[in-house]
């Protein structure tokens, strides 16, 4: 597919996405909303895993902080606006993320994975035990989504499923553009160098610890925003937002979609949410199939869905260019 072809395809997909409320019933629209906000969670994890080459087992720490802070802020501060509530979630996650990264910049490989898991568990334990603030086992509910006040347009009711879907689409869309932009900046290139060869990057004059700090802080900010949207959408937050399984959810989305490709996690979250929902309705053992799927992907399709698509595209092109099955030069 050439460049114009790609642009057309993306445009068609975007239009199809924006028009979702017109052709999906409420249940499917709610599912699509989940796909949209989880896609930012997956993209932010992919920034660490796919771009930075660091395996994080604790990404739900930031997702959870975003979700809890938004919920707590809405419960405690009367008349808090919608956007400030979301921003509070994202910024708190970024603050926690930058604090953790002071320790995380010194380790890599398995030790990075373990330390992220430790921090994740630490926050999970706090969420479980700090009952007066987090609600512990019972979780936090009883807050509702404030209306969105826009200049010129006025008040928009966020309890309406379609409105909330569009709102999610805009918020997550802006964040994704921001994330996409970062991958193109010098910082983004420095992050890639981190993955390819950290020592050489240092020789070239890159301050890799600073790169890592920004990578982790930004990724936790995005995960926090995703978590905020989760809290608003569910109108309820419990420890399941901050446990290790939520971190694994993120990893699955990234792996399914394709590690290291910006669009991979978008496909991954779509696939994971839709197939996960379908499986959970046909069988109560859906995690078994998810696990098998995970194993098959790791064994045979390490490029994920994006890799599969690219492979199919390559074969198609080869078949067209060399119809008699000659090997491509």
């Amino acid at each position: 597919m050439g460049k114009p072809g790609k642009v057309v395809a993306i445009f068609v997909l975007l239009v199809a996405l924006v028009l979702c409320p017109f052709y999906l019933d409420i249940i499917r629209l709610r599912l699509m909303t989940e796909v949209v906000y989880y896609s930012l969670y997956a993209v932010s994890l992919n920034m660490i895993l796919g771009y930075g080459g660091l395996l994080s087992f604790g990404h739900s720490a930031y997702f959870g902080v975003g979700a809890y802070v938004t919920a707590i802020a809405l419960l405690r501060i009367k008349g808090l606006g919608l956007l400030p509530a979301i921003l509070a979630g994202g910024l708190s996650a970024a603050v926690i993320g930058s604090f953790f990264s002071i320790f995380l910049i010194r380790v890599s490989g398995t030790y990075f994975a373990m330390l992220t898991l430790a921090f994740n568990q630490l926050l999970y334990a706090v969420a479980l035990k700090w009952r007066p603030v987090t609600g512990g086992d019972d979780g936090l509910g009883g807050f509702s989504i404030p209306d969105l006040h826009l200049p010129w347009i006025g008040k928009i009711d966020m309890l309406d499923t379609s409105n909330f879907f569009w709102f999610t689409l805009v918020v997550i869309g802006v964040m994704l553009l921001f994330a996409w932009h970062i991958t193109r900046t010098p910082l983004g290139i420095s992050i890639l160098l981190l993955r390819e060869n950290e020592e050489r990057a240092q020789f070239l004059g890159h301050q890799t610890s600073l790169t890592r700090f920004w990578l982790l802080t930004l990724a936790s900010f995005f995960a926090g925003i995703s978590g905020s949207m989760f809290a608003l959408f569910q109108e309820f937050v419990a420890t399941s937002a901050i446990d290790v399984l939520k971190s694994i959810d993120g990893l699955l989305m990234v792996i399914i979609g394709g590690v290291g490709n910006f669009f991979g996690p978008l496909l991954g979250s779509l696939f994971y949410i839709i197939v996960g929902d379908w499986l959970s309705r046909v069988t109560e053992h859906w995690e078994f199939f998810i696990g098998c799927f995970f194993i098959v992907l790791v064994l045979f399709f390490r490029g994920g869905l994006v890799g599969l698509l690219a492979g199919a595209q390559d074969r198609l092109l080869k078949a067209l260019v060399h119809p008699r099955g000659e090997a491509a030069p």
Partner: protein
Amino acid sequence: MESHLNTVLITFVHGLVYGMLLFLVASGLSIVFGMMGVLNLAHASFYMLGAYFGYSVLGVTHSFWLSLLLAPVLVALAGSLAERFLLRPVHAAGHLFELLLTIGLSLVMLEIVKWSWGTEPLPVALPESLSGTVQIFGSTYPVYRLFIFGFGSIVVIVLAGVLFKTNLGMIVRAAIDDPEMVSSLGTNTPLVFNLVFSLGAGLAGMAGVIAGPILGIYPGMAQVMGLDVFVVVVVGGLGSLFGAILASFMIGELQSFGVLLFPRFSLILIFLLMAVVLSIKPQGMFGEKG
């Protein structure tokens, strides 16, 4: 005053017993990591599998001792198959994919257990010969817990004997230092890896069988044990048997006294310890690889 002292002593013994269980599971995990560089996140699932296999063998044979013998062998077999057909093909793709594979494996094993045995906790009776109590420190204490400690000690001694006195042990220790060199000296390292992996799984399975009667058999048991074991190997240092022993008892006591002294914060305490150790010395107390 005396009752306080009793409580402290009993709590201490409780911690020792739990520490022993932790060690049985952690030792395999630590050695496998030292040799193969794989942090097996499905390791605690072998512990769970052992408990369930033990339950079924007990149901068929009505013999605790047979279940203690057979279940670990079955778990070791499962471990051997998992290493040969899942882990080995992914080895060349790097640690990232190995870690991810073990997550998938743990999900699958959890669901297989739920499928085969249901989600309800299973009742296991103590073996009759071990169900009594004894008097220690002026309090009654269940014999079974003391049995766990004694049995575990024997396993530790046998394990240390194998590791430090036999040819296989020498190869394993050498492979922890430098697997490539061992391989080029003519040892069939893939076979050794497989053997050690299944042995580790079998040990975890054995811990599952003996833990069943006191800690319960339920699908969440792998996660509960997994987190504690994870802290043990991280704090002790991956690849170090001595570190695993020391850390097992540290965590065992910390759990035991933590529940007694600050019931609300014992969970936080353990992960705080782990985060602090990792932040100061990422390779753990006795880990040698940086």
